[in-house]
Each structure stands twice: as structure tokens, then as C-alpha cells.
């Protein structure tokens, strides 16, 4: 049933819920019962003042009865239907369902949203519990201290003839363990509090740098204009708590400054407006390597970008060393990433540009153009094998492309069932 024909169904539903007889409602709004009957059976269109009067008598917002009122609800229901595996909801009757049973429909939509939120939390926590050595170490430390306290306390409580020397020693031990336990527990809680907010707890110097850049929107005007040096920015930055993080940040900002000098903001903005997000064209236009374009695009302010972009880099071991997140393509914090990312193909084909359109598998599959390329670190040497860093720029593509390779975040949270690259079971396929 088409959307624009079901206002009557909603009126009938709301009237029944309010316990008002059809004849009473018709009289209250000044129409005949037979005409209201036709409206309620969707045989007459309704709008304007009559709709307002009916809404007033029924005590509901007119929008609840009108055509567009449930657009968001219907969109949610369609999304829930799209995520269904075995159930086959009657999609052609979704409008009727939302109109006749708004409460049930809202409940279903809310349930679907809640499942999505819970899956996200489970994904984050499972990732952390499975791959986070910091968490495992902290838990072990806490349990060991609890064991020591329990054992010592039991000795004190159950040994009445305990010598003063032993008693004093065990009291000191308990005090010492309790102090350590309090501190460890506080750190652990602070760490776990970040479970729902991936950026809230940092575990490595790289992440401190990422967080600093994210807080600045990946764009530093004072570095663009030369008003501040990389060292000065690092000096004043908050959140760079370790010397390693500050050193990494200085290196990253020097590279940023070099890219900004090679591709000044105003010229970059003008060229972007002309050619769009085309790394090859930008590389030719500015006579810079594609990887420099990748970095520069990730540092552009939102207002000059035709679309947001993501960026991820890895070293030769495949370890992710920088992430600029983009909606729809999850870049894992702790786990090893999907081996099907073009990022890793770039490692095996040094300094060769690669472009692949991929579909990121998930509840809401998205298509991306992934531009990847690796670059040598440091000068060439006859005496040492080169080290490489690989870059992958992610540009949203819009509609999912038929036949595009499916990629994921990491195996543990990837829903793709048949994958030759799978390293471990997925909690989304095989359950937790």
C-alpha cells in the first residue's frame, strides 16, 4: 500500500486507541460518519484543516497522522529488514505496519538500533579483551594483589597466636597491597571507561599523536602559514605525554609542513574544486609523489574537501601506525587489520600506485575507492634492505559496487563468512 494512502489507517488506529466511536469523531469534526468511514479505509484523501481538527480531537500531533510523520520510523524499519538473515518481512507493507501499529513499529525500530549499539560495544570490548596486552596484564596484576590480600588477611584473622613480628609484617603487606590495588583498579577503570569511546584511552605513542591530530581536525593552520614551527606546536600540545610521542609528532609535523609548502592550501583548494579528489591528477599538478597527496588530502580542512577522506598507514610488518578514521570503514586499534586491504598489496609492490574499489562489509556496507602506495623510508642504501611505509587513502564512493571485493576491519569482527584470508573466527559469524 502506498504511503500517501494510509493516513486513514492511522486515524482509525488512533481513534480506536483513544476509545472514540467513529460516529462521535465524525460529529466532533463536522463530517458525516460515512465520509469518515471512507477516510479511515483510505478511500478518500485527507489533509488541511480537517486533518488538523481530527488530530486535535484525537489528542495527537497532526504529523503523527500525516504522510511524512513516520518517514524516519519507516527508514529504520527498512534498515532492520535489510539486516534480517532468515526472516522475510513484508517490505511492501512496511508503511501500513508503521501506520497501523506505530507503537510496535517504534519498538521494533528501537530494538534494531539497540542491537546495533550493543554490537558496536561488543565489537570494541572483544577486540580489546582479545588483543589488548595492557588489559590482560592489568587484570593479572589486580588478581595477584587480591590473592595476596586475601591470603594475608586470612592468616591474620585465623591465626590468633601470631607472633607480633609476623603480625606487623603481614599488616604492612596488606597495607602495601591495598595501596597498589587501589591504584591499579583506578587505572583499570579509567582504561575500561574508554571502551565505548575508542579515543579515550591511549596505549601507544602513535595513538597519542593520532589523538593530537584528531583533536585538531588533522589540520594545523599555524603550520600552513609558517606562524608556528613543528617543535613549537609539539611543545604546546596537550596529550603528548611521552618523549616517544613527542618525537613522532615532530616527525609527522615536519612532513606536514613539507607537504603544505609543496601543495599550498589556496592552490590545493582551487585544484580540488577543479579535479576533485583525484590523487593522480593532484600528483601531476603539483609534481609531488602520490603518497604526499594522500597525506595532504587527509590534512585538508573540511570546507575545501568535496568529501571526507580517511587515511591509514602501516610499516613493513603490517602494523598500523596512523589512522584517520572515516565513517563506514573501521580501522582497528588493537587487532591486526584485514589482509585484503589494498594497503598491504602496496607493501608487496613498493612505490607502485594501486587503486581498488572495495566494499566494507558490515551492517551497512559502504563502497570506497582505496588508493594505496608504499614509499621507502630514508635514503637508498646498497648495504641495507629498504624499509617501507604504506599509505591507503579512503574516499567514499557512494553506492556499493557490484563485484567489488569485500573487505573488513579485522577478522574477529568481520561478518564475511567465506574468506580465504581469515585468521580467526568472527564473533559476528560464529557467536561470542
Amino acid at each position, binding site marked *: 500500500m502506498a504511503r500517501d494512502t494510509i493516513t486513514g489507517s492511522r486515524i482509525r488506529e488512533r481513534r480506536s486507541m483513544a476509545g472514540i466511536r467513529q460516529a462521535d469523531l465524525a460529529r466532533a469534526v463536522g463530517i458525516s460518519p460515512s465520509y469518515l468511514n471512507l477516510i479511515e479505509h483510505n478511500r478518500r484523501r485527507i489533509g488541511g484543516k480537517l486533518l488538523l481538527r481530527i488530530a486535535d480531537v484525537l489528542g495527537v500531533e497532526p504529523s503523527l497522522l500525516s504522510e511524512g510523520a513516520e518517514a524516519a520510523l519507516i527508514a529504520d524499519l527498512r534498515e532492520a529488514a535489510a539486516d534480517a538473515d532468515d526472516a522475510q518481512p513484508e517490505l511492501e507493507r512496511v508503511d501500513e505496519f508503521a501506520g497501523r501499529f506505530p507503537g510496535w513499529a517504534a519498538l521494533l525500530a528501537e530494538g534494531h538500533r539497540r542491537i546495533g549499539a550493543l554490537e558496536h560495544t561488543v565489537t570494541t570490548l572483544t577486540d580489546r579483551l582479545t588483543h589488548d596486552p595492557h588489559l590482560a596484564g592489568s587484570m593479572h596484576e589486580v*588478581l*595477584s594483589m587480591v590473592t*595476596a590480600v586475601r*591470603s594475608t588477611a586470612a592468616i591474620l584473622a*585465623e591465626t590468633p597466636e601470631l607472633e607480633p613480628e*609476623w603480625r606487623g609484617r*603481614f599488616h604492612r603487606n596488606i597495607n602495601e597491597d591495598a595501596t597498589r590495588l587501589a591504584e591499579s583498579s583506578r587505572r583499570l577503570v579509567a582504561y575500561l571507561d574508554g571502551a565505548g569511546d575508542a579515543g579515550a584511552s591511549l596505549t601507544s605513542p602513535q595513538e597519542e599523536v593520532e589523538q593530537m591530530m584528531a583533536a585538531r581536525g588533522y589540520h594545523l593552520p599555524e603550520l600552513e602559514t609558517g606562524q608556528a614551527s613543528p617543535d613549537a606546536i609539539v611543545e604546546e600540545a596537550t596529550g603528548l605525554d611521552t618523549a616517544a610521542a613527542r618525537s613522532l609528532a615532530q616527525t609527522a609535523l615536519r612532513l606536514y609542513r613539507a607537504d603544505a609548502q609543496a601543495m599550498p592550501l589556496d592552490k590545493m583548494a582551487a585544484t580540488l574544486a577543479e579535479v576533485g579528489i583525484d590523487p593522480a591528477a593532484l600528483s601531476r599538478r603539483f609534481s609531488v609523489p602520490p603518497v604526499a597527496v594522500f597525506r595532504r588530502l587527509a590534512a585538508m580542512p573540511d570546507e575545501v574537501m568535496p568529501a571526507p577522506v580517511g587515511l591509514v598507514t602501516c610499516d613493513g610488518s603490517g602494523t598500523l601506525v596512523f589512522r584517520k578514521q572515516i565513517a563506514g570503514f573501521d580501522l582497528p586499534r588493537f587487532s591486526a587489520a584485514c589482509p585484503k586491504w589494498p594497503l598491504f598489496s602496496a607493501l608487496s609492490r613498493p612505490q607502485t600506485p594501486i587503486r581498488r574499489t572495495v566494499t566494507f562489509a558490515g551492517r551497512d556496507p559502504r563502497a570506497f575507492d582505496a588508493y594505496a602506495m608504499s614509499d621507502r623510508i630514508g635514503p637508498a642504501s646498497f648495504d641495507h634492505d629498504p624499509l617501507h611505509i604504506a599509505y591507503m587513502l579512503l574516499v567514499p564512493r557512494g553506492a556499493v559496487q557490484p563485484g567489488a571485493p569485500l573487505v573488513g576491519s579485522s577478522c574477529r569482527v568481520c561478518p564475511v563468512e567465506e574468506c580465504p584470508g581469515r585468521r580467526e573466527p568472527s564473533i559476528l559469524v560464529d557467536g561470542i
Partner: protein
Amino acid sequence: MGKRVLLIEDEPNIIEAISFILSRDGWSVATHANGHDAVDKVTAHAPDLLILDVMLPGKSGFEILRELREAEPTRGLPVLMLTARGQTKDREMAERAGVSRFMTKPFSNADVLDAVRELVAV
């Protein structure tokens, strides 16, 4: 002199508490705090029972246990393993390595005493 127990554990206050309760129960207790040379320590000390932590600096309790089971003198040594890692897979790993008894932290003193007595059959 009571039967000999060797305790390999890196948490000093657990070492002190377990040593105390076992000593009061009549056992002769020796201790060691790292995994590097734990196998040598066991071989040299020749205890009647080994209490072994899993997460030790240098070498894990699982590795130590496997090495002990491969050597003739320690193949039948009763080993009580203590660990904060109580998942099924850890328990299974300990069983495959040849553990005699597996106990997860935090445990009670009474449980430790009972296990030690049973394993050495006093």
C-alpha cells in the same frame, strides 16, 4: 623435617603468605621468583611438590611444566599450578602440559593447604 615444597611465584606477598601457611603446617618451603632458571631450580632442589605460577618473568609456567614433564627426574613430580588466567583454554593447556592440580587466583589458604596435602598424600 617436613616434606619439601618449592614455590615459584613472582608476587612477593603471595610468596610470603603461602610460605607462612605451609611452614605452619609442617612443610619445608623454598621459593623462587622467576621463570628463567626455574627448571634448574626444581632439578637442583628436588622438591616433593612444586607450586607454580603461570605468568612468570622470563618463561611461562606452561613452558616450565612441559620441560619438567620431558625430564625423567621430574616427570612424576606433583605440580599445583596457580594462575589468574582461569579460562577453559588455560586449564586445558595446563592439563596438556601435565599439571596435577590447577587453581585460579584468588584462592583461599585452606584450598591451597588441602591441595598440597592431597597431592603429596600425607
